[in-house]
């Protein structure tokens, strides 16, 4: 994947193009870009052919993992990847760890796993399972496993944990990603954690930027604070995804 900045405005607004999109050949997308939200692999209430009528062809699609996780084994047997399974293979597919429209309950992530909530309840996902899912799903872009539970607003201890754990997950995901033939065309994104604690955010951004990630996901903005402190810390040449500025779906 190649991210080319075309222009930056005085206040920092950026226009860019993303090309070399792996299995999508010479297609490009321009940014700022909005991903189309899906739930269990469908755009709520709209069939694919109806969405085509909006004139958006090969639009990028956001697939939150929680409601798709229970299909892991089915996808392994299916072997053609989630894009094909959902009849969305001509679209750019981004697989995120959580569903950003739903705030998961606090306090359910442990050191070695993250909790996701599927239809039948809580599912614990460690790095091994997570990467096995990526290999079965074969997304274009995916967010590395991350702990986005930064605890109560202002809590330093939990915020620090979320940063530490996320970096540890990221390193292991990167290792496995590198070894994986199947994920050759997929790009991995690192998540900036740290809740509302500026120093933790700064640490997370600086450390994540040192890893060979294709871009950054600014996590936890629906629960903790503004963007200002975080954005400048991400390397200029890299792409960023802002996950859900549509806060509070309540």
């Amino acid at each position, binding site marked *: 994947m190649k991210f080319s900045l075309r222009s930056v405005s005085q206040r920092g607004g950026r226009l860019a193009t993303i090309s070399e999109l792996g299995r999508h050949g010479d297609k490009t997308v321009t940014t700022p870009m909005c991903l189309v939200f899906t739930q269990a*692999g*469908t755009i*709520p209430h709209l*069939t694919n052919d109806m969405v085509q009528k909006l004139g958006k062809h090969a639009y990028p699609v956001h697939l939150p993992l929680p409601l798709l996780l229970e299909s892991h084994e089915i996808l392994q*047997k*299916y072997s053609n990847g989630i894009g094909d399974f959902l*009849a969305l293979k001509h679209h750019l597919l981004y697989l995120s760890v959580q569903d950003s429209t739903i705030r998961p309950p606090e306090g359910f992530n442990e050191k070695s796993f993250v909790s996701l909530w599927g239809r039948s309840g809580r599912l614990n996902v460690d790095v091994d399972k997570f990467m096995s899912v990526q290999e079965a799903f074969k997304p274009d872009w995916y967010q590395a496993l991350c702990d986005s539970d930064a605890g109560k607003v202002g809590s330093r201890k939990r915020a620090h944990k979320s940063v530490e754990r996320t970096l540890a997950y990221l390193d292991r995901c990167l290792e496995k990603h590198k070894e994986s033939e199947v994920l050759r065309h997929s790009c991995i994104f690192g998540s900036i954690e740290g809740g509302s604690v500026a120093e933790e955010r700064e640490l997370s951004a600086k450390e994540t930027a040192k890893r060979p990630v294709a871009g950054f996901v600014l996590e936890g903005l629906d629960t903790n604070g503004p963007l200002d402190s975080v954005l400048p810390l991400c390397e200029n040449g890299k792409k960023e995804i802002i996950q859900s500025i549509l806060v509070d779906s309540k």
Partner: protein
Amino acid sequence: MSAPVNHSALTLKVLAECSVTKARACQLSLPHSVVDTPVFMPVGTQGSLKGITPEQLENSGCQIMLGNTYHLGSNPGAELFDKVGGLHKFMGWKRNLLTDSGGFQMVSLVALSEVTEEGVRFSNPYDAKDMLLTPEKSIEIQNSIGADIIMQLDDVVSSTISGPRVEEAMGRSIRWLDRCIEAHKKTKTQNLFAIIQGGLDSRLRTICLNEMSKRNVPGFAIGGLSGGEDKNDFWKMVTLSTDFLPKHKPRYLMGVGFPVDLVVCSALGCDMFDCVYPTRTARFGTALIPTGKLDLKKKGCAEDFRPIDENCSCSTCRQFTRAYLHTIVTKETVASILLTIHNIQYQMDLMRSIKEAIIQDKYPEFVNDFMQKQFPTRNYPEWTVDALASVNIKLS
């Protein structure tokens, strides 16, 4: 017998008649488009097929669909339709529409309704007002809605009851037909169909057939059936009606039905059908297939990577596997839409193959083939064996 009158709003051309059964394939020309019969009309109660756009419906090959006067008359109401210029414009449907009279819903949906010679009095559940639906009022609302085919207000009784009420309803339906004919203002653009009543009593049905066929209406419906009565009685009333009704006018069997019913009743000489079944069962996760039904909620579909039907050309079957549909059925609204699209296509394809078989004069073979797929162990329902035998088809 009066000389046939040219109804400018409808012409029926019989293309082929089965040499064995009473089946016929026709071309029914209506104000908005031509309809090939036998035809299945999906039900779009509130002016839409739940979840489907008119364009998606058009793509399936559907040429005529139903709207319900009771629902549309309450919301948005006749006045709005007058302002807009009718339901076709309102919902963006370029092909044909048929509206029922509102009578059936009033009786089936409303706890307290009272039928008198004047009309049906009931309490509207939407706004708790007392309303009287007379034949005149029903036609007035239907004139505003503007469907290509409109139905008389009939006195509907449940097919499971017997006794003097049935005869009373039959007699009243004839009188209400005359009042509807009198009240109907748009004879050049809308076709008023009569509805044969008489319950499961062949004497009463015959009286009704005799009387109603004297009236100069462009088409006839066979009503008062498909209400939970014994199928062994049902088919006899259908075939009695088609024996009697004039050949040059369409016959509409109301509220039918399941795929097997469509195949058998086409053999008995019916041209038009309507039923909520295919669309309703779709919303509950059941797809229609040549061998019967496929319940996508069942665990057996979880790892089935085939489409619902490998021979179906609908957009659902072209894109999705049973395994995928299993993950979303009854949980995501898109699942209802995808299954509805499939079931409508199934019905359209079924009717087209019925028509083609009749035109090729191979309907008995078609029926046998269809029934064997639906009942592989040959455990045919008794009524189908009898009904088909009555039109010279022996199920093997």
